[in-house]
């Protein structure tokens, strides 16, 4: 090992804290990329493998009752690779120990063998015996929520009759990864479960022997999805079929896709920003650090080292720091990536996880950081290396400062000399001041973009649960009912108010863009389930007017006052043109809304309902639940409070965990930046500060001079940081907005305050660390250093 390498080691040893701080900034950028992209890829890969191994269907269709023979016709459609049919029904469950009624999605299993598509992954137990009417398999999340094991029992009201069922198996299905009950937007493991039963039993209960109510199809590789769907619609129309739909409109897939999309978009938005910010900051820091080595470089050259050798020495120095950062970042990023993959994997209950190897990420992150750092070091080196050694070895001549304001005014005589020092220093290095400011602003900005989701989640909860959907519960019926059902519900114990709700599947279209949505009807003066527009005001729709989700309007490119085409997918299957009267501020799904009278007119039907929204007197809740558990005609009861709780524990938790991790990484970067800044300022000005100490300034006074500048920059950096943070948050929101879920961009004051607080706190912590050095400043040594 050459003596230069010994110097390298000693230098690194001497500056370990600072080197580590730089390495951490790099690590923050690298870790973010590896974590986010790695976990997004792993989860996507896992899902694809899950779909493939368990044969997740491509097309789904519901019918009232179709004879089995139709299935053979469908199998003959061009493009259909596999088709299978089954019975699928919703029913109210009465579970021992559960106060509220729950809902089960009952799905039939073939009497022999396993389903051709949407196969089950058995976690425990076995498949039911075909001749046992009470044996069922239940979904794992539901089983876990109730501690069900093979042998556990619960009751269900199937076709109006209460039956006791016995759990014999616990399973997972690619079809119900995200299992959402009727009338709900969030999965509720306690109150919604999938129950698989032998076909023979379910057919007997629902009088569907030799018939089916649900069809699912796997397409061949070259199939045209739309074409196959319309052919299926043609075959099912006369059996009461509602239009077939693809994966895009299948609840579980759509939600899962949305979540993965969100992760993927996050991974496309945040890590590049983090990585660029960290690269930029490391570049700045190393430029200054190498500039400090001026005299050493002069000495090396005087000793006869070539420019190349000197440059190589410092390149090595920088490379060691960067490599340390890349290694720390890679390890942390990999661990965090695995953590996130597991967290989401658990959340989705994937039966297995596939961790993607992502060598490309390590290379990209590493190379980018290294280049940024080397460029920074080389910029400083170029300046120093071109100096003749004799000049480089001498302390630089006092740099030329300028009067900040023309002498005429003489304001400088009024300001304290310490303020003048700061002002001139800033004015003398405007670029450095600007870059420091930029670095600090960026730190605040990346913190804001990591933190703002908290605020948007609260806003979402506020608008959804407290402004729009203010009902306590929703009772759904398995089929459309006459409006008299409303009065039956109104008479249930504890029901204070009841509002009818009708939902019709439709295709909505403008030009050649179309979406399949649910069109709902509600009383014009509805107070439980209200329509809230984009200005967050309650709207009463005009006669025949349609309100659509703001996002849907954007997708269709339609404005208020313009008309859209609507294909009714239930009943008469007509197509009509309806004017858009309002844009709805909503965050889950894309929807259409009308008043119920207008909707019945469109449907040419007598007033009918699919569900009833109710508000309930708390003290009669137990009575109400007990009654609903016995009601033959109800398929489910959604509870707003439970929904909100689930939202908080599921989605919000995932999002805040992600935000928390990003915040941590951003905070590390922010601290690294601020700390390096303070440390380098101290080195750059050590001699000046030591002379001040000799002149009789106390350590505290000297520290204040040093920190005044940093403090001022840190404070000045906040407003631009807020602006940049808002901009990044806007990009993030746009990237994350989906048809399944989105948020309103609100960056509340507490987010700005918290982000700035973290940066200023890092500044304070750095000040303390650097302060210790000022107190230990060896006056004699510093002043003698050129003796």
């Amino acid at each position: 090992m050459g003596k230069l390498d010994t110097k390298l080691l000693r230098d690194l040893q001497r500056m370990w804290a600072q080197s580590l701080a730089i390495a951490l900034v790099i690590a923050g950028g690298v870790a973010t990329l590896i974590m986010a992209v790695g976990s997004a890829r792993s989860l996507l890969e896992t899902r694809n493998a899950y779909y493939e191994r368990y044969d997740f269907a491509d097309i789904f269709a519901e019918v009232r009752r179709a004879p089995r023979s139709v299935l053979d016709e469908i199998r003959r459609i061009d493009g259909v690779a596999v088709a299978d049919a089954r019975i699928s029904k919703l029913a109210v469950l009465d579970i021992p120990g559960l106060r509220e009624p729950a809902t089960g999605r009952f799905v039939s299993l073939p009497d022999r063998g396993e389903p051709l598509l949407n196969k089950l992954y058995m976690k425990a137990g076995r498949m039911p015996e075909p001749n046992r009417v009470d044996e069922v398999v239940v979904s794992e999340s539901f089983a876990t929520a109730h501690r069900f094991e093979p042998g556990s029992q619960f009751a269900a009201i199937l076709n109006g009759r209460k039956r006791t069922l016995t759990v014999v198996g616990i399973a997972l299905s690619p079809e119900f990864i995200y299992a959402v009950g009727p009338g709900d937007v969030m999965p509720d493991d306690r109150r919604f479960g999938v129950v698989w039963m032998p076909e023979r039993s379910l057919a007997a209960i629902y009088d569907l022997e030799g018939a089916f109510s649900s069809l699912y199809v796997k397409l061949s590789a070259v199939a045209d999805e739309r074409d196959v769907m319309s052919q299926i619609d043609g075959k099912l129309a006369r059996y009461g079929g509602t239009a077939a739909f693809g994966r895009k409109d299948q609840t579980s897939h759509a939600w899962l896709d949305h979540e993965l999309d969100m992760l993927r978009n996050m991974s496309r938005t945040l890590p590049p920003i983090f990585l660029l910010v960290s690269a930029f900051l490391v570049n700045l820091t190393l430029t200054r650090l190498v500039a400090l080595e001026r005299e050493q470089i002069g000495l090396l050259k005087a000793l006869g080292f070539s420019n190349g050798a000197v440059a190589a020495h410092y390149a090595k120095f920088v490379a060691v720091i960067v490599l340390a950062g890349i290694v720390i970042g890679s390890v942390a990023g990999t661990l965090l990536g695995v953590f996130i993959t597991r967290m989401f994997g658990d959340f989705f209950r994937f039966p297995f996880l596939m961790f993607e190897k992502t060598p490309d990420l390590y290379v990209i992150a590493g190379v980018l950081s290294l280049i940024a750092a080397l460029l920074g070091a080389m910029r400083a080196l170029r300046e120093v290396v071109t100096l003749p050694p004799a000049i480089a070895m001498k302390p630089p001549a006092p740099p030329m400062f300028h009067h900040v304001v023309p002498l005429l005014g003489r304001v400088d005589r009024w300001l304290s000399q310490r303020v003048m020092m700061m002002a001139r220093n800033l004015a003398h290095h405007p670029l450095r001041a600007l870059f420091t400011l930029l670095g600090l602003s960026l730190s605040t900005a990346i913190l804001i973009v990591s933190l703002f989701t908290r605020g948007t989640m609260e806003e979402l909860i506020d608008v959804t649960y407290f402004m729009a959907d203010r009902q306590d519960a929703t009772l759904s019926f398995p089929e459309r009912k006459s409006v008299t059902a409303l009065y039956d519900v109104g008479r249930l114990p504890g029901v204070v108010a009841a509002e009818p709700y009708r939902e019709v599947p439709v295709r909505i279209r403008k030009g050649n863009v179309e979406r399949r949505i649910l069109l709902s009807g509600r009383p014009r003066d509805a107070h439980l389930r209200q329509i809230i527009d984009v200005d967050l005001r309650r709207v009463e729709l005009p006669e025949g007017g349609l309100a659509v989700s703001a996002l849907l309007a954007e997708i269709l490119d339609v404005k208020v006052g313009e008309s859209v085409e609507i294909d009714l997918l239930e009943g008469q299957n007509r197509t009509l043109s309806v004017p858009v009267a309002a844009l709805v501020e909503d965050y889950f799904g894309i929807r259409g809304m009308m008043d119920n009278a207008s909707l019945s007119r469109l449907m040419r039907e007598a007033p009918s309902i699919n569900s009833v929204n109710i508000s309930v007197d708390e003290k009669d809740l137990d009575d109400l639940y007990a009654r609903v558990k016995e009601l033959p005609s109800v398929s489910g009861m959604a509870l707003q409070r439970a929904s909100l709780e689930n939202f908080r524990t599921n989605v919000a938790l995932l999002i805040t965990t992600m935000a928390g991790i990003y915040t941590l990484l951003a905070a590390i970067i922010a601290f690294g930046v601020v700390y390096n800044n303070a440390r380098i300022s101290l080195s750059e000005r050590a001699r000046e500060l030591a002379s001040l100490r000799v002149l009789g300034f106390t350590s505290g006074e000297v520290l204040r001079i040093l920190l005044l500048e940093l403090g001022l920059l840190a404070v000045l950096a906040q407003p631009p940081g807020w602006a940049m943070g808002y901009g990044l948050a806007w990009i993030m929101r746009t990237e994350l907005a989906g048809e399944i879920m989105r948020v309103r961009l609100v960056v509340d004051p507490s987010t700005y305050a918290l982000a700035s607080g973290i940066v200023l706190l890092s500044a304070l912590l750095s000040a303390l660390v650097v302060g210790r050095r000022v107190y230990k400043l060896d006056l004699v040594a510093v002043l003698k250093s050129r003796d």
Partner: protein
Amino acid sequence: MADAVFRAESLSKTYQTGDVLVHALRSVDLEVFPGEVVVLLGPSGSGKSTLLNIMGGLDRPTSGRLFFKDRELSALPDAELTEYRRNNVGFVFQFYNLVPSLTAYENVALVTEIAAEPMAPEAALALVGLQNRMDHFPAQMSGGEQQRVAIARAIAKAPSVLLCDEPTGALDSHTGARVIAALMSVNSKLGTTTLIITHNAVIQEVAHRVIHFADGKISRIAENAHRKSAAGLVW
């Protein structure tokens, strides 16, 4: 004779570097009196700077006692040493250590802001003949001028002692003479006790006393019966 400004009693300083003990000062006894100009001469490494740094409150002796008037410096805590420097001591070093971002005036005012009974910065600069360069930055001045600003800065707090460690070390002879002249003028006008370390034997001619150092000890003290005026110095 008047009471001494400094009184050193068996002052010793040792440095431990690795296994080696370096005796920078070996039991030095010395008195310095008000208004005196003392020149310290001696080979490099003989302990001159060490003594001056201890007198100026920048460093502490390993053993022995040092009194400034009737305060025992060797017993003062850090905060009081800072306070002592702030109000009583002016330093001038070989390198001027001016704050580059402040003008001549402001460099001086920096000290007058914190001192107990300072003189006006203009007056201090006038004493060193720089009344016309007040708004210049260090970069705009020659080495000699910068050193004179350093002297003005050192005396602006109206210190009782002025400690100069090779103040002309970086200057040519003509400029060096002007710096010495500035120091002498301060001494005669304000009566500031002045200690000057130098390698330049010619400078001893302006001193009241010349103290020769060798190997951490005072080897000889000479009194100048006839001081030369600084104007007559050439080297």
